[in-house]
């Protein structure tokens, strides 16, 4: 009875944000004028309705620059090896597992506040990272969900064919690609297969001595007619040049243990070859493959890792890294993983009564709040992007997020461009307060997306504070 009462009041009251600590250094307010003896008491200044806002790099102090650069360097190091969803998740696990233990059984955890644990989907391309909060899970969790898959070019099951003296690999597109920008540039082949029960993890093209694959473009001399309307008129034009002789290709693959049967069962894809890089003489931007959500996933997991031991999150903080965002979040490691992971977390953390009681489980959901990474347009250097027009978040849910961001001193931008595919709406149907959040990224769907190191820095602060928030 008592519990269901609490359930009712939680809904009746607005989100508890009022006790949020304000930013350490208020930006807009001036210190009160020192009262000189004998001077007239100054009239009380009304709060400025439109205080002058200092945004972007203007608001950054020189002392902050090294931290921004260091974090960006860490991120680039992570991104260099995160070319596939499997590796992107693997990279985060590697970062996290130093200070956490792997959840192996479904037995109830003896969870002390501040303890960290993680588990990974058997498919490898989704994982959950958890820091246990001060309050029991029955009071809800703070969740961040981010997908780590990116547009790529998959190989078909029987990809090898020969034409005009060359051996080609037949491809199939995954996700929304800006096709023309994938032409005539070095690509790497990543392959994962299970062979006689063992992992076969192969990558060719990212080491300097490796060969690369190329999807050749047409020369301008002969393109005037056929590429007039669109550079790439159909996806069949996206096959990759893999060798001169078919034999050379098959010999190489066989040497690596990849027979034609293995090829058929493998996850094989072409991704841009080469490392991500700082951009500009000031190194203020970074360009790399698959920024869109990997940046948020990285920032969120680092938010958990970097929290000082003394600072235990109020609620249990959860980062769920998923995949399949490029194909509508379907599949077991798409949005479905949110449900399975939450069930598992609730199963090991909730008290016996609650986890068996459907109402108990639902209550945990309804008291939880989530941010989900989304692809959003926005202006670089202006911080995280929120778009209430698309995710249609309730003002209360949005306010809770914004106050966490403000508490972090992180900049954010609210846009209202039209769009579809808000996954926050889907999460809301699970009775969770959910808001979409994105990074302003240029060149989405191209092999090399552009991101500001300042935005990355803002994301890190904003997400870390969100995970700790009440």
């Amino acid at each position, binding site marked *: 009875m008592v519990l269901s009462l609490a359930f009712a009041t939680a809904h009746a009251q607005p989100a508890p944000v009022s006790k949020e600590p304000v930013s350490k250094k208020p930006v807009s307010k001036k210190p009160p004028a020192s009262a000189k003896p004998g001077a007239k008491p100054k009239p009380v200044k009304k709060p400025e309705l439109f205080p002058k806002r200092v945004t972007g790099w203007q608001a950054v102090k020189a002392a902050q620059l090294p931290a921004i650069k260091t974090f960006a360097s860490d991120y680039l190091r992570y991104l260099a090896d995160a070319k596939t969803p499997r590796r992107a998740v693997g990279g985060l696990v590697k970062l996290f597992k130093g200070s956490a233990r792997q959840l192996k059984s479904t037995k109830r955890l003896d969870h002390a506040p501040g303890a960290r644990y993680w588990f990974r989907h058997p498919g490898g391309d989704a994982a959950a990272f958890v820091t246990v909060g001060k309050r029991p899970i029955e009071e809800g969790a703070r969740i961040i969900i981010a997908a780590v898959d990116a547009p790529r070019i998959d190989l078909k099951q029987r990809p090898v064919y020969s034409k*005009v003296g060359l051996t080609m690999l037949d491809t199939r597109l995954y996700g929304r690609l800006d096709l023309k920008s994938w032409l*005539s540039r070095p690509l790497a082949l990543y392959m994962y297969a299970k062979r006689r029960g063992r992992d076969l993890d192969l990558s060719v093209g990212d080491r300097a001595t490796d060969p690369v694959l190329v999807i050749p473009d047409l020369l301008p001399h002969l393109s*005037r007619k056929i590429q007039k309307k669109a550079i790439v008129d159909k996806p069949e034009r996206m096959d990759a040049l893999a060798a001169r002789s078919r034999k050379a290709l098959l010999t190489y693959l066989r040497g690596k243990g990849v027979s034609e049967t293995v090829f058929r069962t493998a996850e094989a894809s072409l991704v841009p070859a*080469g490392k991500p890089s700082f951009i500009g003489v000031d190194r*203020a931007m970074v*360009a790399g493959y698959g920024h869109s959500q990997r940046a948020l996933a990285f920032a969120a997991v680092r938010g958990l890792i970097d929290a000082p031991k003394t600072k235990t999150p109020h609620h249990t903080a959860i980062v769920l890294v998923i995949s399949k965002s490029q194909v509508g979040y379907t599949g077991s490691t798409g949005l479905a993983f949110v449900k399975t992971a939450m069930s598992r977390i609730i199963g090991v953390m909730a008290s016996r009564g609650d986890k068996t009681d459907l109402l108990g489980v639902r209550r945990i959901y309804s008291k939880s709040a989530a941010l989900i990474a989304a692809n959003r347009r926005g202006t670089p250097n202006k911080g995280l992007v929120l778009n209430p027009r698309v995710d249609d978040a309730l003002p209360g849910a949005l306010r809770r997020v914004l106050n966490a961001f403000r508490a972090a001193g992180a900049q954010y931008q609210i846009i209202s461009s039209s769009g579809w595919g808000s996954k926050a709406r889907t999460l809301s149907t699970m009775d969770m307060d959910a808001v979409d959040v994105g990074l302003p990224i240029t060149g989405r769907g191209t092999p090399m997306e552009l991101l500001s190191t300042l935005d990355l820095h803002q994301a890190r602060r904003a997400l870390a504070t969100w995970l700790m928030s009440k």
Partner: protein
Amino acid sequence: MPWAVLGGVPAMTTEYRDWLDRGRTTSRVIDLIKKKSKRFRVVDVHDITAQRVRPGDRLLFINRDRTVIAVVVGKQPLVKAGARLIGAHIDTPSPQIALSRLRKKKQTTLRTYRYGGTRWHHYSHMPLALVGRVARADGREIDVELGLNDDFALYIAKTGPRLIVSVSSTPSAKWPGVSPRTLVAELHKRYGLTPVDLEAAELFLVPKHKAREVGFGGELIGAHGQDDRANSYAAWRAVVDLTDTPRATAMAWLVDREEEGSSHAAGAQSRFLEMVYAWLIRAQNKPATEANVARAFARSVALSADTPAAMNPNWLQVHEEKNAPVLGNGPALFPHTGRGGKKGGSQAHAELIASVVDSFKRTKAPLQFGELGKVDEGGGGTIAKYLAERGMDVVDVGVAVISMHSPMEISAKIDIWSAYLGFREWFKQ
């Protein structure tokens, strides 16, 4: 034994990849040639003091650091036997930086325009580096590079009629103790350049990636700039490796500005070739009259070595499959170029075609015939017509590439090797 000289395909590949990686601009290629053409004497074509050349003498004529003629003097005087000349170009298409914005204090972005047949979509969303040459206010010229060997790159985000390249995004000089980081500030730090110095410069954006092996089996090379640093490499190496003195004088003329129509002081339309002919005729103790130069030209034969398009499997319908070159079947000989009814192209005489075919056959190097695309699908030109204009017989022959004019042009090693062997043999005839 040609292997004794260049040491076979693997050794050639190493040298060729280095040539592509270091020769990012025309003047850098000239630097490489100066360094690597051992036993060659650099000669100033304007130096008309009593100089004599003997058969077997090896000379380099360089004009404006942009074009070079490598010469091995033949047994027969130039006026009598003419020369065997291979013309190729060492410039390559890429975006070029508009100088207009370099004088501004705030440079978050720069504008670019196209040098040659550059395609907008190839250079966007890719790590780029800046390379080029600056004529400083004091008149000295220096080569500059930015990003090629640094931990940062430049990036083109917006395409369209003008490419906008991001160079910096932090407000300059905002932070005390932190020096402003703009393009010009960076160039000043490295090379002492000022905005005034940068008023006269050619700055190109090139892909940061180096030449790579393409595909399995190690038979293909992918790199920016192979049009036409592939044939210019083969032609230059063929001259350098001539062990015996040829009958007719052997020349490799590597020109600049081919991608912009060759009308340039360092292009194939310049009279530099006439100057070199006149210099050589005088040095062989003959009067350097206009008539003698014309006679020498009329007795010369030339190959215009430029990259044709090999068939691209993804776009087969633009090619004529029976007659288009196949990557890896040897350099392609084009009996005719031009568009439509061969307009604006050159049509080679059968005698010259036969001599080229013979040379390749004798050295057992593969050679194929080809043409550029289907009739009326498009077309392109080479420097052949500018050589022919001088009265030389000329034919187009060169290493074919796929993805021409892109950041990753693909060639076959065997084709470059074969061009080298064939060119060398042809010089000897």
